[in-house]
């Protein structure tokens, strides 16, 4: 940053990096009530962790019914991919509604591996779209032998 004139690099204030706005909270004792702690730090309540939405699908009485309906045995599936796009924060106390549809079905390795993707959206109690997800499962068709 020496001799800017000589090299022709003149930075104005607006060319500089701006600092993201966030607060640092130092915790030096046990937090007894997490929700209360979150509220005192400016949140409506506890924020859901990044992969929390995976639990929504398991809330139903028979979480694997949708696979049974598709004729997929649960012992033969593995998770291949997972993708989340978040639009609004999710807090403890929110009521979410999940809607899913089949995205794609495709094969690899001559049908030894069969992939099914499910596209879901999540709306909260205000009917606001909070997130979308794509979950891809893989069926191991021949590995049982």
């Amino acid at each position, binding site marked *: 940053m020496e001799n800017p004139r000589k090299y022709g690099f003149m930075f104005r*204030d*607006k060319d500089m*990096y*701006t*600092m*993201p*706005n*966030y607060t*640092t909270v130092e915790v030096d004792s046990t937090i007894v009530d997490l929700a209360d702690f979150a509220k005192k730090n400016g949140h409506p309540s506890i*924020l859901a*962790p*990044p*992969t929390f939405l*995976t*639990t929504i699908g*398991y*809330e139903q009485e028979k*979480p*694997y019914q949708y696979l049974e309906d598709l004729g997929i045995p*649960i*012992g*033969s*599936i*593995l*998770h*291949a*991919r*997972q*993708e*989340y*796009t*978040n639009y609004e*924060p999710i807090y403890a106390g929110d009521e979410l509604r999940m809607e899913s549809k089949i995205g794609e079905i495709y094969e690899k390795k001559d049908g030894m591996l069969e992939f099914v993707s499910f596209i879901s959206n999540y709306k909260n109690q205000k009917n606001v779209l909070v997130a979308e997800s794509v979950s891809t499962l893989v069926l*191991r068709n021949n*590995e*049982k*032998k």
Partner: protein
Amino acid sequence: MKKNEINNFRIGDEIPNFHIKPISRSMLTLYASASGDYNPIHIDSDYAKKSGLPDVIAHGMLIMSFLGQTITNIFPQGSIKKFESKFIAMTNINDCLTCKGKIINIELKDSLKRFSLKLLVIDSSGKKKLSGSAIVELKLKEK
């Protein structure tokens, strides 16, 4: 977390590694309860073997949740706009995993600073278990 650590990040920097303690059966049972995913391939050895697996395997989402924690160890929770993972290999009992993240792009857009992260989970022999990416957005302070 050191103050202003986020502001010191430049393109190409790595975020601190997150080391996971060895994967254990109890960890998988706890995650099954927490997530509601009671697929027996994660909790029942007999069932796992019958399904052609060597033993119970970890939930992919448990490993992805560790990766999520790797991000939120540094960035504020709630700033993650996109988060994706590809599950490359099964994680077995006793695997020692390390989660890694690298900042591959930083963009300033409107009043936002957007970080693109490339993510990876490897075991102690360096084998890739999971690869992923994330986009983290932070509001900029008014000038």
